[in-house]
């Protein structure tokens, strides 16, 4: 029979076209909109170019938060730490409810030429006792905390804490 063959050919063509369109779109979007997650220490090691967007995760350093209101817009500066290094962050806008000192957060934005991080968005979506998974991993990589041995130490002690086998 001719009709089913022709139908199958058309179907295959449509599927192939659609599949290649989907693949093309995916690859194009991947190359332009994937964002990496870095901890403050990784930022110092890899030194991302200013203007390249990435996610910076860490703990809001205790005592570092300062909000200034200029032209009726709140601008907050704080330091984000993983216990090994800390990066100054600037954010203009409203901070989420769960944002506070000692809380694990993720900031999305890019480095400025002066070595600070300009955040476009600050996320602290998780519960107050729950640490974002990526922050937890950053802490573990930095050797500051292993979840096997109980809850994390208080955030304000990290920068001064002694770590075995770490020379940073």
């Amino acid at each position, binding site marked *: 029979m001719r*009709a*089913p063959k*022709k*139908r199958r050919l*058309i*179907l295959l063509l*449509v*599927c192939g076209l*659609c*599949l290649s*369109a*989907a693949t093309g*779109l*995916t690859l*194009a*979007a*991947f190359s*332009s*909109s*994937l*964002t*990496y*997650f870095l901890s403050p220490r990784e930022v110092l090691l890899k030194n991302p170019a200013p203007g390249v967007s990435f*996610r910076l995760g860490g703990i809001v350093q205790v005592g570092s938060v300062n*909000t200034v*209101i200029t032209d*009726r*817009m*709140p601008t907050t500066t704080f330091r984000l730490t993983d216990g090994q290094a800390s990066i100054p962050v600037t954010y*203009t*806008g*409203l*901070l989420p*409810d*769960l944002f506070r000192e000692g809380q694990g957060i993720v900031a*999305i934005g890019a480095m400025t030429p002066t070595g600070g991080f300009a955040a476009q968005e600050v996320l602290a*979506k*998780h*519960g*107050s006792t*729950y640490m*974002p*998974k*990526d922050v937890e*991993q950053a802490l573990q990589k930095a050797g500051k905390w292993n979840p096997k041995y109980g809850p994390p130490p208080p955030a304000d002690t990290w920068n001064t804490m002694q770590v075995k086998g770490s020379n940073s």
Partner: protein
Amino acid sequence: MIPELGHFALALAVAMAFAQGVIGIFAPGLRDARTMRAAPALAISQFLAIGASFLALIWSGVVSDFTVKNVADFSSSRVPLLYRISGTWGNHDGSMLLWCFILSLCGGTVAAFGGGLPASLRARVLGVLGLISGGFLLFTLTVSDPFVRLWPPPLQGAGVNPILQDPGLAFHPPVLYTGYVGFSVAFAFAIAALIEGRVDAAWGRWVRPWALLSWCFLTAGISLGSWWSYYTLGWGGYWFWDPVENAALLPWITGTALLHCATVVEKREALKAWTVLLAIATFSLSLSGTFLVRSGILNSVHSFAAAPNQGLFILGLLVITIGGSLLLFAVRAPALAANGIYAPLSRESALVLNNVFLCAIAAVVFTGTMYPPFVDLLFGIQLSVGAPFFNQTVLPLAAPIILAMAVGPLLPWKRAALGPALAQLWLAFGVALLVFLVVAANRHIIAALGLMGGTWVVLSALTDIAQRVRLFRVSPRSSGARFMLLPRAALGATLGHIGFGVTVLGIAGMTLATQQVIVLKPGQSTQLGGYTWTLDGVHSAPGPNYTQRVADITLSEHGHNFLTLHPSRRFFAAQGVVTNDAAIHTNGFQDLYAVFADEPKSGGAELRLSRHPLAPEIWFGGLIMAFGGAVSLSDRRLRVGAPARKKPAGAVA
């Protein structure tokens, strides 16, 4: 005592579920009618047992029995009754029990109302459901037991997370879960059909209502969740492409495809193997979506902190269910020969096109969701795929669907011509083009395209109805009579399309939203969206289990005050948590949205003010879609049991 009874009932249910599974699957092979009849009886008793178990857990929550660890950890005697009940499923263990309860409800329904099915098919369907149920009940009982006791009991529970203390969220999980789990029935029918080696129109008539019912619940559940995040989280966003949102969207997309191609099986006996595959895929996506997120494998706002052994158990169950069913499909699918023949241009082909594009969208969303965890697992690189990725990939693939979904319903089965169909749509096309030109003139190209698409879909669906009732060509009374006589399935489908179009309009409208973050002192005002927003003052007010600070914002237009908004900040002392309660004023076509974010030391209030054009249409469209599904379900032809009455039961066995 009551929790022990619940625990026992749960253990009983595990045994019954496995018995139901083994009997249901193997009895039809023995051709023993009496053994086969045991499957429905077991399904109903399993439902009763899990029901008892679930009630026992709810009871423990309602009376605040803190000897139950689950209640002590996630509830408190200080929260209102509704949240003591909803707190039952607001955590991992309890939500597992809810999941199993809904699954057993589905099984019980098939058992109770499936009298018209061939006995062997019913037994096999119940068998598959029993095995799935058994696996997850075993998981609940062994590694995720909600009835673990705590001694000595604490004086007070830890309480319900304040952000979850919301009526929207009390109903969101059960509705969504019903949607997810309902697809298990379509899945069970698909597996049973593969075992039996036959798929026919009668099979399609059984699968479609179940797929439709689950789809309605899933649509309603997703809309409810999106609406909740819009008014609770205070960001004014309705969709974040978060892994858990994608996990709900994926089965919705394939479920939509399933609905459409099940029609083809039912009407034309074509696309059989494809429909079976979609039924398997939809339930597999429901399963993996729910559990990958719940078990913390995918990083998400919604993940419950869970032990690693739970993740492995779940992963094992998923591999067995999904892998097993796909393997069965690979072996048996060639037996499902298609009978229907159709031309390249026909209703069938339009539905195939719909399926191809829906599946492409599903594939893209799946890639974006699963890529980060895989890269992390394989290379240890942490990266995230955010909203820009999904917008760039999904929107171009959705455009052809929007374009074609207006034309498809106008094409006849078997063989069609494009001319007459398009001739009906010139008015819809003209209006849509006008909308595009007006909006594009204001340099909002994206919004203009979206609004054009939405208008096109809604108007062409309305045109379809108008043609069917011969509006303006016969008297209005006669048109009304014709409307009442329209087949409900067709009317439901049209409503579904209208709902989708309305949601597209809402999403497009939201791209025109204007927003301002500002610090105002009492008496100061700002301009936004054509209105003057003035902060009158900030005052304290009491709440049931929180205290709050309320900002009073007056809106005026041309010097005329027309509205006062009262956004508040709520302090929950029990958890030491602050939440924002956004004030939203809607007139059905736009939302005025105010969030009171903080009180600066210098006085006044930090506010986020926004105007969201067409925002209500996003959820209104979801509601119309779910309602369309319900209308379609009420079709006589689809009423459960109705089609099978003509056939004597057990004729095939």
